């Protein structure tokens, strides 16, 4: 149950049977029930076939049908391990927070860092600032390549006014977008560098779909950055693995 999207993954042994993703909306409880039903439909099974449910994300406390609630930090570590067990670091940029997690080969958390309080360097930061340019997140990769302009402010509110000033000064949209992405890449790599340097990274969360950001992050960190097929569902996948492991 993310702040922006609710996801469900159904797992049998090591196989993903089905998954679903919907906007969280205003009712995490409702979204949780619905997304699970959709995953059940996608897998072609019935709800009665489900042995155990583990919930994660900020909305985990709102769900009353869980066997267990686990934090998204443990779940992302476990989910990333499913695809890239050799990678020692997971970077997750979600809707309202970004986190850097050190993991062992079993997908267990060794250490982690999470941004404090504000939405700086998160999916929400990108969404708000990009919308200010009249763009949607999924359009970013289709913009022509451009030299990133320097964005100094990491505060969502201040960055928005910085973007307005840049537009007023006639800066090209694509340069501003590149600048925003670069500022996120810089911030997240500083966080990463403060716990461990020079280890390969699994990049998860909705923001990881952005090719430009992936490339910038790899350049800032100087390591390989690998992204799972559907990076948004890695937390839910991790929860499913934990549910399977309880038994």
């Amino acid at each position: 149950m993310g702040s922006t999207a609710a996801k469900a993954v159904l797992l049998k042994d090591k196989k993903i049977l089905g998954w679903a993703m919907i906007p969280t909306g205003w009712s995490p409880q409702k979204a949780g029930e619905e997304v699970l039903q959709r995953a059940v439909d996608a897998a072609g099974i019935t709800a009665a076939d489900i042995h155990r449910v583990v919930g994660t994300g900020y909305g985990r406390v709102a769900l009353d049908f869980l066997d267990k609630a686990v934090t998204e930090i443990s779940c992302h570590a476990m989910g990333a391990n499913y695809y890239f067990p050799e990678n020692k670091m997971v970077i997750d940029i979600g809707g309202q927070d970004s986190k850097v997690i050190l993991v062992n080969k079993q997908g267990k958390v060794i250490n982690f860092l999470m941004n404090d309080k504000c939405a700086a360097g998160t999916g929400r930061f990108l969404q708000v600032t990009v919308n200010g340019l009249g763009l949607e997140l999924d359009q970013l990769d289709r913009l022509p390549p451009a030299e990133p302009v320097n964005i100094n402010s990491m505060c969502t509110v201040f960055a928005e006014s910085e973007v307005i000033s840049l537009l007023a000064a006639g800066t090209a949209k694509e340069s501003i977008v590149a600048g925003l992405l670069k500022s996120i890449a810089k911030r997240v790599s500083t966080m990463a560098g403060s716990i461990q340097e020079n280890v390969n990274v699994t990049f998860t969360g909705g923001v990881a779909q952005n090719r430009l950001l992936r490339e910038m992050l790899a350049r800032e960190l100087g390591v390989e950055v690998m992204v799972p097929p559907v990076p948004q569902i890695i937390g839910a996948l991790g929860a499913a693995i934990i549910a399977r492991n309880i038994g």
Partner: protein
Amino acid sequence: MADYRKMWQDLGMDLEKHDEFLAAVPDIYGELFVSQQKRPAGMEYFDFVMSEVHGLRVKELLDKKAEGKKVVSSFCVFVPEEFVLAAGGACIGLCAGAQYSVPIGEKVLPRSLCPLIKSSLGFKLGGLCPYFEVSDFVVGETTCDGKKKAWEILAQYHPTYVMELPQKKGEADKELWLKEVYKFKEKVEAETGVTITPESLSEAIKLANRRRKVLQRLYDTRKHDPVPISGKDAMLITQLSFFDDPERFIEKTSALCDELEDRVAKGEGAAPKGAPRILITGTPMPLPSWKMHHIIESSGAVVVCEESCTGTRSFETLVDETKTGLNEQVEAISRRALNINCACYTPNTGRIDDILRQVKEYKADGVVYYSLQFCQSYSVEYHLVEKALQEAGIPVMRIESDYSDEDAGQLQTRIEAFLEMIK
């Protein structure tokens, strides 16, 4: 609670705002403290003290003043309260842990400043704290730049006396602090009109030490598994130790310790045996700052020790009681501050030793490094503490926060993830 409105009004407080501030306390206190399972019966006294927090104790202090005694208030465990006690006065630590007074403090202070300083000045400016109003003067100290400069502003509103604290622990620093302690003694004598004698000072040293020792006894019970008292309750007692009448506090806390030691013998706990044990280290949590303890303990862990000024730093170091001459006594008092390991000193490796020792003594499974926002000394010191703990194989997590509840959800997630990690 009796009606203290007249008393508050006479003290020049803002009754309307004060009502608003206090109105929230019973519900919060009920939810955080009274609702706890398996609470020791001896907590009843401290519940009573809290219910009278701005009432009965303030009246006692006013009665004391009517007898011609003085009330001195401070914000720091370095302030040598022994002189105030020897002169027949009362020394109290002031409230500085509420979000409510922060915006009031921000009227005269920058937003990007430690919430403790903003909260404390807000209490004075807002007319919210009877302890401020009842005190004849406030003793400030130069533990950090924020406080050092804030005293200049506070002095515009309340008599303020500042002690200069050394930044190192060498011979010259000892000399500086000894001189400051002498000056403080003279200040107290001048204010009270009482000449401090070796006899009165000896009594005061013993009284302050007894209060420290009973807190040590309380914390010793927390070294057991299951822990006989919750971290929230134990810290509350430390917080109240700064306000309460020392003799009564010692008596009531001793009685509670009897009960806790009995619980230990029977294996009864406030938390289940084997619950993850957390040591909190860092900046103080003055009344009513209970956020971190509440989040940790509602996530299934228990706080077993606070290495902070509202924890072990306030009582682990005693004053040598064997000295008899006045000069030797004053020197013994001055030594205490130099044996406390506060981040205001450089270097401060003694604090790392304290944390490593306490992790063993209190059998902590992990350490939460708590730093108030904008506290440079404690934020910077994290790096070396983290390194030492990692080398010793002790899990540590850093939390930077303030007194507001806006980050409670995020903190909950981080604490739960930390507990999942150390399992």
